[in-house]
């Protein structure tokens, strides 16, 4: 049995999902010889630390009832710096202007030779090159499947599973909020504003939806894809972006009459990184409905490979984090 000492930094929906998944999969992990011992959990205000392993069920319960994870005041950054452990699971919220606290956390982890698994897009979309260099300098392993497409495997699919293939193009739907709004607009023949309101009521869209509906979230994911799969050194300023706010129900109807649906499509290849609403033939694999994500990877040997799945959600995103954690330590 190999024991890996873990900190979970950030305890919102994703961090809590990771805790739940680690509890649920304890036996499975033991069977493959892995013991992920969480020695510290931090949210934005408090933390809890126990070298012998934090009781995750108790932490989840306390977060539910009191809104905090513990009584200690050590910040995530301080935990990463001072508590002896192997892996930092970084699940703080994304900030795409500065990279936010996530960027500092990751750099500190690498400085101390710790491995990092993250779902936080901001730092990767802003400072990809710097982070990769820092991880190499620290001899750290760095995985971030959860940043692109939630539960849907894209990065590891392109880099590991399809190894040997040259990837020539990746296109797909990388934002569930936009897909939900466009799908509902078509179904109900309703305006963008109406369906945005519905999405907000159901919790599919944030109170300030700009980041999703203007295509910025999709752009960040494309930047990570461009860097990680195509070896570029791009930032979100290299992406041409058009959002979905101007789409009309009439346009969706006209498209339908011609055999198309309108989807917010992100596309990356050697020559461009682009987010824009596009016409997708109704019977095309990319024409998935609801809040699903989908990605079609164009390869030289295998042709197109298309995956679809849930792009967000607490447990779904945690599943991508868990798979990264296992793949680092299984060997």
């Amino acid at each position, binding site marked *: 049995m190999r024991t890996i000492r873990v900190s979970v930094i950030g305890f919102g929906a994703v961090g809590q999902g990771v805790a739940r998944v680690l509890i649920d999969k304890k036996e499975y992990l033991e069977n493959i010889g892995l013991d992920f011992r969480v020695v510290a959990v931090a949210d934005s205000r408090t933390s809890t630390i126990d070298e012998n392993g934090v009781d995750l069920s108790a932490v989840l319960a306390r977060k539910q009832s009191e809104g905090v994870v513990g009584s200690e005041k050590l910040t995530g950054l301080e935990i990463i710096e001072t508590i002896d452990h192997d892996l930092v699971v970084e699940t703080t919220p994304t900030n795409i202007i500065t990279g936010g606290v996530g960027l500092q956390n990751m750099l500190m982890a690498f400085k101390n030779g710790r491995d990092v698994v993250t779902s936080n897009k901001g730092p990767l979309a802003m400072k990809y090159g710097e982070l990769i260099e820092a991880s190499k300098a620290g001899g750290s392993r760095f995985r971030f499947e959860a940043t692109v497409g939630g539960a849907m495997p894209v990065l590891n699919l392109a880099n590991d599973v399809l190894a040997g293939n040259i990837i020539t193009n990746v296109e797909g739907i990388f934002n569930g909020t936009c897909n939900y709004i466009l799908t509902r607009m078509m179904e109900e023949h309703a305006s963008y504003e109406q369906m945005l309101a519905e999405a907000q009521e159901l919790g599919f869209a944030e109170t300030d939806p700009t980041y999703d509906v203007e295509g910025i979230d999709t752009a960040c994911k494309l930047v990570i894809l461009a860097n990680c799969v195509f070896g570029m050194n791009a930032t979100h300023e290299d992406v041409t972006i058009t959002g979905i706010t101007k789409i009309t129900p009439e*346009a969706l109807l006209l498209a339908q009459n011609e055999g198309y649906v309108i989807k917010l499509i992100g596309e990356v290849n050697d020559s461009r990184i682009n987010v824009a609403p596009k016409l997708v033939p109704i019977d095309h694999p990319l024409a998935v409905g609801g809040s699903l994500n989908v990605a*079609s990877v164009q390869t030289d040997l295998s*042709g197109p490979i298309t995956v679809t799945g849930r792009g967000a959600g607490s447990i779904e995103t945690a599943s991508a984090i868990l798979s990264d954690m296992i793949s680092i330590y299984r060997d």
Partner: protein
Amino acid sequence: MRVSMDIELKDIPGQLLQALRPVSELKGNLISVVHHHEKRTPRGTIPVQLVFEIKPDKLNDIVSSLEESGIGIVRIDEKRFFEHGAVLLIGHIVHTDIQDTIDTIDKTGYAEVVDLNLSMPKINMASSASLKIDAVSKEHMESAIALLKEIAKKKDLLVIEPIKSIGVA
């Protein structure tokens, strides 16, 4: 452009080769040859159907060359546009001179707007339109759509084009 042609060959050796030579000499791209050896015409000739792509200005040269060799041409069917595309426009489509938008594509000579559906919900609200465009080739279709996007930018219209992988997926 793509040309489909029915010709008749005499039943002597070397005729088919003679019929195909001008297509290749004039840098045409032969797509199919169907040789109906069993369906002899009342004149004793053998009907052959050819399909090839050729630059429009070279077609007459091929016809003359075949005629000089004594090969009978029964039918020529040229299809200038064999790339069909659709795009959507959203914005103040009519008030930004829709005629001018269409003319810009039509004037290229390699692409034409062949169908337009317009939906105008209310005065002062954005209209939506679907345009069907025919073009000489895939590359010409791409240029036509690029041109349309340029005009649309000036007129503050949103262009929604089909995804790239339609052809390959």
